[in-house]
């Protein structure tokens, strides 16, 4: 299933959304952008810029106070079941996202919520775990997994629902080099399969070379929206560290330098 990136159809539209938490001032104001199928978007910004809130709005966990988010032309709040199935979200801390008592049970959590037949759940969970290299760990208690394995399990719980978009909140936080490197390769291969990725992070170094587009957030608004090559040198004025390769005049080099770790 190779995605066509030439003229991808626009399938997520964010139109003039505003949002504020009950006990604080405006958190997001006048956010608009479109997401095309198969894109890899890097949502960058300093802490408190509104990245996580925006991801939660896209997943339908929060509702905008004004404006609209549409998935395939339909407002997402109209059918939250469809939204949650099509737009999966991986949280920053996988420990709070993983609710199953074993790797298999956690992956089956989503399909069970959608009342799929048990045989179908067993098949899809098995194939998802296999594709992420987690099948050998299917009976393991999630709390005994490594950080990288937990992150892959969190992804498995989303992938099993066959989403069109995956939202990732600080996907590389608390991961060591092998864990971050293998997650990066996994995200890239999922994106190649046609899954749209929106990764929110303040540490752009690892993922910037994989992104098609970078949206920079500042104080609850969109400050920039352009290909990473155009924005990378102006990152520091938004409180985001410029990647090393760019600082040394090497452009946007692959973070792993093309090395594949075991």
């Amino acid at each position: 299933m190779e995605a066509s990136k030439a003229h991808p159809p626009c399938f997520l539209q964010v139109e003039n959304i505003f949002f504020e938490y009950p006990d604080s001032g405006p958190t997001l104001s006048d956010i608009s952008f479109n997401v095309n199928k198969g894109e890899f978007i890097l949502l960058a910004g300093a802490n408190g810029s509104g990245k996580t809130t925006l991801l939660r709005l896209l997943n339908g966990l929060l509702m905008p106070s004004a404006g609209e988010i549409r998935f395939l032309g339909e407002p997402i709040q109209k059918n939250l079941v469809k939204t949650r199935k099509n737009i999966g979200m991986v949280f920053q801390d996988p420990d709070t996202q993983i609710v199953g008592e074993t790797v298999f049970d956690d992956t089956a959590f989503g399909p069970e919520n959608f009342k799929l037949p048990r045989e179908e759940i067993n098949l899809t969970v098995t194939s998802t775990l296999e594709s992420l290299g987690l099948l050998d760990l299917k009976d393991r208690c999630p709390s005994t997994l490594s950080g990288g394995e937990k992150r892959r399990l969190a992804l498995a719980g989303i992938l099993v629902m066959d989403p069109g978009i995956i939202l990732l909140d600080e996907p590389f936080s608390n991961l060591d080099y092998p864990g971050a490197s293998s997650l990066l390769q996994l995200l890239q291969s999922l994106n190649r399969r046609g899954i749209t990725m929106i990764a929110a992070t303040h540490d752009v170094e690892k993922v910037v070379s994989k992104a098609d587009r970078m949206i920079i957030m500042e104080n609850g608004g969109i400050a920039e929206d352009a290909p990473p090559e155009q924005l990378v040198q102006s990152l520091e004025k938004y409180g985001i560290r410029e990647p090393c390769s760019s600082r040394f005049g090497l452009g946007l080099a692959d973070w792993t330098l093309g090395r594949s770790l075991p």
Partner: protein
Amino acid sequence: MTPFMYLSGNSHFHRLDPRYKLIILALVSISVLKAGYISLCVTSLLLIWGIKKTGINIPNAIKHLKLFFILLLFIFTARAVSDESGTLLFRLFQTEVTTGGLSEGGLTAWRFFTVMIAGMIFSRSTKPSEVKSAARWFLKPVPFVPENRAAVMIGLAIRFLPLILNQAQELSLARKARGGDFRKNPVKRMSELSIGLVKKSFRSADHAALAMESRGFTEDRTDTLFSPSRLDAGYLFSAGLLAVFLILY
């Protein structure tokens, strides 16, 4: 890995229908409280067989049961000094220790130990999700009990307990690193730890609720399929016989 954690396997214990397993555990646990030395010997032999079949590592289990052994010793001592039947063996600080007391103490401690080992074999060979499904099945006919919600709560409690314990350990270490253990007042020490732990637990619970919602959580979910076999019925029947034997002997 504690001996109470599920370990995948293909033993009879692993393959047994979880509902039957729960009934067998309840039968053995209740009837063993009436058991004498002969039936405890027979039950212990069966449990040793269960330990072998479920792959429980005995040195590891002993290591994790250290505190339980202290509790057993306490139970044994309390029972030994409170029962004055039989021949007087010796006096200890005006307390008479008799053969009857020692025998009763040994019996009580052995009964508790048997229940603990039966529970260990059960949890070692049963997935928490199976326990949850079995609990839901048992609660279904009970009026005014939302069985799905109860089952989810059981599952989440099993899932998050190790996390909360880890957090408590981390907070305790963080306190120690700042000299918190030099504080003499145990109430203050406990309150410092518990306030932080409660805060962290609530935050984690909040995130877990959001994560569940983002994965489309609903109470009307796919049920677990139970497929009891003749072997399950055989085990249940044998457990019934064992329960009668335990009560009689």
